[in-house]
């Protein structure tokens, strides 16, 4: 079969190229935004996911380490440690604080003071006034292991760098629990109690026992705590990105639709000729729909290549940026095809109004 749709699209070369480029720009931007979201989602949950904690205990109504306050007595850890099935119970202090970098920069850090549990993966054994710093934060400020930064007038030495601890607007740092407590300024107070159970198969039963012992606190098994973080990230960021995506899709529909509408209008005589020689309406609809799908598919592929191709440059220019291209992003493909189909609506309506008798009009 002759690829009539593609030929007619390419016949209108300049307009088609501009349309494909514009669709590519929009698709590239949307992919970038969703890759940022995926990166932030991973960066925000990676620590919780990989801290080796089975049960998280927090103040009531506090279900995440990012966007809720939680204050507990450190002594709760000692009580929880007596619950049958608990192997380790250890406090974690969270401090949101400014860090001063060589007097040149002052920036916010999420600092976690941990004791026996809660060290980021690969962390060295920390000495007092030492910390593990998020790698992208360190790259942004050109800091390495052995460098120093000042927090609340106290000088900390960087003893290690961590990955997956970048939540875009805030990066994590980890220090000893007593350093964290000192920075918090509330002796005997922790933010969370972290629990390691003896047998992970008994996790639910141990959590139930802790709830009975500590009825005024919130007790989460690790999967529920991780899910709460993901939902927190999604509820905060996804609606904004979804609105941007919807806006971008609408622009794509208008753009492709306008181009095709103009193309059908400009080649009205060709369509009238096709009708006159006996092409069915359904065939002509397929030709126009085919052009819409070709334009959006080409734009989507080009946009995806641009987005992925530019990633190393973007990460280099903005070190705090973490981009993740996950299989979930493939959802953009059917979405783009739907955009193409929608874009064909206006030209199809015009096509239906073309009379085959127009072939005799000059």
């Amino acid at each position, binding site marked *: 079969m002759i690829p009539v749709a593609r*030929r007619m699209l390419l016949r209108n070369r300049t307009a088609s190229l501009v349309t494909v480029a514009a669709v590519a720009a929009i698709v590239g931007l949307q992919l970038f935004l969703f890759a940022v979201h995926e990166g932030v989602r991973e960066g925000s949950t990676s620590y919780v996911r990989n801290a080796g904690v089975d049960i998280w205990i927090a103040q009531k109504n506090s279900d995440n380490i990012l966007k809720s306050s939680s204050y507990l007595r450190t002594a709760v850890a000692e009580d929880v440690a007596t619950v049958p099935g608990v192997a380790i119970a250890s406090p974690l202090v969270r401090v949101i604080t400014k860090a001063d970098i060589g007097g040149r920069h002052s920036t916010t850090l999420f600092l976690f003071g941990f004791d026996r549990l809660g060290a980021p993966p690969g962390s060295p054994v920390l000495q007092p006034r030492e910390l593990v710093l998020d790698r992208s934060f360190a790259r942004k400020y050109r800091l390495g292991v052995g460098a120093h930064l000042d927090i609340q007038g106290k000088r900390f030495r960087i003893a290690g760098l961590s990955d997956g601890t970048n939540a875009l607007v805030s990066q994590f740092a980890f220090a000893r629990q007593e350093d964290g407590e000192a920075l918090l300024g509330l002796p005997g107070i922790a933010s969370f109690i972290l629990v390691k159970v003896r047998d992970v198969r008994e996790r639910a039963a141990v959590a139930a026992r802790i709830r009975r012992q500590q009825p005024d606190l919130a007790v989460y098994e690790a999967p529920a705590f991780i899910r709460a973080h993901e939902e927190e990230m999604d509820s905060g960021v996804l609606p904004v990105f979804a609105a941007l995506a919807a806006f971008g899709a609408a622009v794509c529909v208008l753009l492709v639709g306008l181009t095709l509408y103009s193309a059908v209008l400009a080649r009205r*005589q060709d369509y009238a000729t096709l009708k006159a020689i*006996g092409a069915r309406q359904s065939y002509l609809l397929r030709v126009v729909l085919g052009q819409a799908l070709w334009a959006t598919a080409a734009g989507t592929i080009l946009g995806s290549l641009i987005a992925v191709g530019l990633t190393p440059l973007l990460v280099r220019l903005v070190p705090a940026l973490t981009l993740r291209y996950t299989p979930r992003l493939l959802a953009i493909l059917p979405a783009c095809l739907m955009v193409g189909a929608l874009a064909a609506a206006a030209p199809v309506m015009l096509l239906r109004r073309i009379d*085959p008798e127009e072939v*005799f009009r000059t």
Partner: protein
Amino acid sequence: MIAAEHVTKEYPFVRAVHDVTLRVERGEIVLIIGPNGSGKTTLLSMLAGLLRPTRGAVRFEGKELARMTDRELAAFRLRSIGFVYQTFRLLDALSARENVQLVLELAGHDDARRMADELLERVGARDIADRSPRVLSGGEKQRVAIARALANGPAAIFADEPTGSLDSAAGAAAIGLLRDAARRDGRTVVIVSHDARIAPHADRILDMADGALA
């Protein structure tokens, strides 16, 4: 074979064709002449099933075209009618061959490409099969257009000023091909034209004025 019975076509404020009755037999070449605005092309459109008359009926081999649905009319035009236009109406997004091949593909022929080549061979356009209509001369375009009109073996060919954009030699070649279609293949040919050179080839000449046959 083609019969128009008291056919009238009216538009708001204009009566383009008024009470025309005629009959065209199989294999006949009919030339319709008349001044601009006399209703020739409107009559041709109704005879070819492109336009529905306001009153009266057009029958093609006994079937009344106005009773057909749009879908049936499209199928009828695809299989029974060929068109030749003054401005050729070739799709310049396709090659010469593809313009012919497309009509054959629409009719469901599996070997449309080979059939298109045979038709181009017949009209003397085989050597330009791969070229775009944009680079063809008027005469070459009209040959390709006639090959397209002959695809699917139509019972009738309707030609609107087929020599209007051609020089003498190309015009004579186009007329020769249409005459062959009638004499050799038994196809009915209805031509609307101002060109006096066509008259000697016609079996019948109908003169139109003010929407009616004189």
